[in-house]
């Protein structure tokens, strides 16, 4: 069996829509600097291997890990690159976990880095290149290309999310006000987080509902921004972690599960999930990760959750599908303040992806923030003591879900 893995630190760079004052390497170094500052006894010479990743199609500069090697301090060290679209960060964190748990000789401490500098390129063009292979398969069915562009004019992640939102709203009978309430909570939380992008301490539900529709039922004020930013996490073994920091966070369960294609389906033959808000992948990933972590009653045992939700309807949907709330009850939980910072189960106290979205990095910022909440080092720290937390990730076109379950106690049952 693999070794027990612990997170000893996590760091972020400042996020903004255009970080034109730094290049990609300097941006990454900012996050590493913040990560290593929290563990004074660890230097670059203590790091044995590196895992990194971003989504190069979204920023237009390819194989960045080769020329930013020196900014990461990875010279003459093993370097692995992972790219899985929207979940890149989550997959990088899981790859960091696997690298440590594998028990290779001489590889104990691994630095995982995820980053994105979207202002360098055109993200819409990148998304189009991802979607084109899928769209073009409709030609087989005799649909010409001009027709397809009309059909999929919204395209990309928001197209998928709008379909999810319509069925979710139909199922739970909620209104746009409920969606706006989630946004207000997130953006107000972001105002207390130093690295977040959209900080709006005085946002109200009316402000959100005043903005025009991007695509019904999602309004401009509900949609995530496009940010530049980076995130770094330090993984190590149980023994070394105790020397490095006061409260090591143990990674007890990881999972990454994908659905069938969200809209067009395999071979362009339509999605086999008639209801887009069903999300079997999320349910399956939570089953996998919780069984590894020994979590039998997620609603009782999980103290803090960071879910990957660029759009407010997804935050409601994921919290249900990941077993945190009963089906169709999440809107009431947001209304009654259960998910607030001082609530029973705080969700996304960093502001979430809804406030900060540097695509490659955002799926790693979720487990990173969830780990910092256990350590008590988070920027917007919850007042209660957090023992167990989860961080999830979501990728658009295939509904790929990554999930990491963490705790301040190591899980030894299955080892």
């Amino acid at each position, binding site marked *: 069996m693999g070794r027990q893995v612990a997170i000893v630190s996590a760091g972020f760079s400042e996020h903004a829509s255009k970080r034109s*004052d730094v290049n990609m390497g300097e941006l990454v170094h900012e996050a590493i600097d913040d990560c290593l500052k929290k563990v004074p006894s660890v230097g670059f010479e203590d790091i044995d291997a590196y895992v990194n990743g971003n989504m190069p199609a979204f920023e237009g500069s390819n194989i960045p890990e080769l020329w930013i090697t020196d900014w990461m301090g990875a010279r003459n060290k093993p370097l692995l690159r992972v790219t899985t679209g929207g979940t890149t960060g989550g997959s990088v964190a899981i790859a960091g976990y696997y690298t440590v748990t594998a028990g290779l000789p001489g590889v104990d401490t691994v630095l995982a880095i995820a980053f994105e500098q979207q202002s360098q390129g055109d993200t819409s063009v990148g998304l189009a290149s991802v979607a084109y292979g899928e769209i073009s398969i*409709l030609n*087989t069915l005799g649909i010409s290309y001009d027709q397809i562009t009309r059909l999929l004019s*919204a395209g990309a992640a928001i*197209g998928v999310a709008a379909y999810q939102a319509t*069925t979710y709203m139909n199922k739970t009978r909620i209104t746009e006000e409920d969606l706006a309430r989630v946004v207000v909570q997130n953006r107000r939380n972001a105002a207390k987080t130093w690295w977040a992008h959209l900080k709006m301490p005085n946002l109200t539900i009316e402000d959100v509902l005043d903005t025009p529709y991007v695509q019904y039922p999602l309004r401009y004020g509900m949609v995530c921004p496009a940010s530049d930013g980076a995130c770094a996490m330090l993984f190590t073994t149980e023994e070394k972690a105790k020397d490095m920091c006061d409260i090591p966070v143990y990674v007890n369960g990881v999972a990454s599960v994908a659905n069938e294609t969200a809209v067009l389906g395999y071979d362009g033959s339509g*999605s086999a999930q008639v209801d887009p808000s069903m999300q079997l992948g999320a349910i399956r990933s939570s089953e996998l990760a919780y069984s590894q972590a020994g979590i039998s009653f997620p609603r009782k045992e999980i103290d803090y959750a960071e879910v990957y939700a660029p759009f407010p309807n997804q935050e409601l949907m994921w919290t249900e599908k990941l077993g945190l709330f009963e089906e169709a009850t999440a809107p009431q939980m947001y209304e009654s303040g259960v998910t607030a910072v001082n609530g029973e189960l705080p969700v996304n106290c960093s502001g979430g992806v809804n406030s900060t979205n540097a695509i490659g990095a955002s799926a790693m910022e979720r487990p990173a923030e969830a780990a910092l909440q256990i350590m*008590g080092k988070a920027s917007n*720290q919850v007042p209660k003591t957090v023992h167990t937390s989860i961080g999830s990730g979501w990728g658009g076109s295939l509904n790929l879900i990554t999930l990491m379950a963490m705790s301040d106690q190591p899980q030894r049952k299955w080892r």
Partner: protein
Amino acid sequence: MMSKMTQRKSLDYVKKDYVRTRTMPANWHLTSYKYKFNITHMQPFLDKLKEKKLVANRCSSCNRVFYPPRLVCGKCLVKPDKWVDIRDTASVSTYAIAYLKDPETGDVVERPMVLVHHDGSDTSNIAELHPDIDVKDTYVGMPIKAHWSEERSGGLMDIEYYDKLEDDSEDIETK
């Protein structure tokens, strides 16, 4: 237990602007593509469309019916080889509304983008509604019927759009 680190102020982030930059004009014309697709497995489906008939293929392992036909059932890794007839009635499985700006007049047009679920099939498929249907009247589960175009070429475009049917399902009070 709260660490002192929590109160730490943000990094000293000062945004610097470059004073001297150079702008170089450049163009990047992407070439046209030629993709080849396998349509052997859906040839019966395309032929039947000319006769205003809809067929779908069924996985003999999990009994799911795929419309339009699929080469492989991803769940069972089995070739769906049974052909079944399905009806031309369908229901709206989900929808979203896109707001498109006309490049000439500048008017914003509302266009519903729907996924339809054909009766008798297990998949949903992308489609268009009748242009006269008011966007605000669209709802999940709305019954619709395929409207065939006059000249059919053996493709999914033979279904020009979907007409709205009268909804005879009883209203259920949900609270």
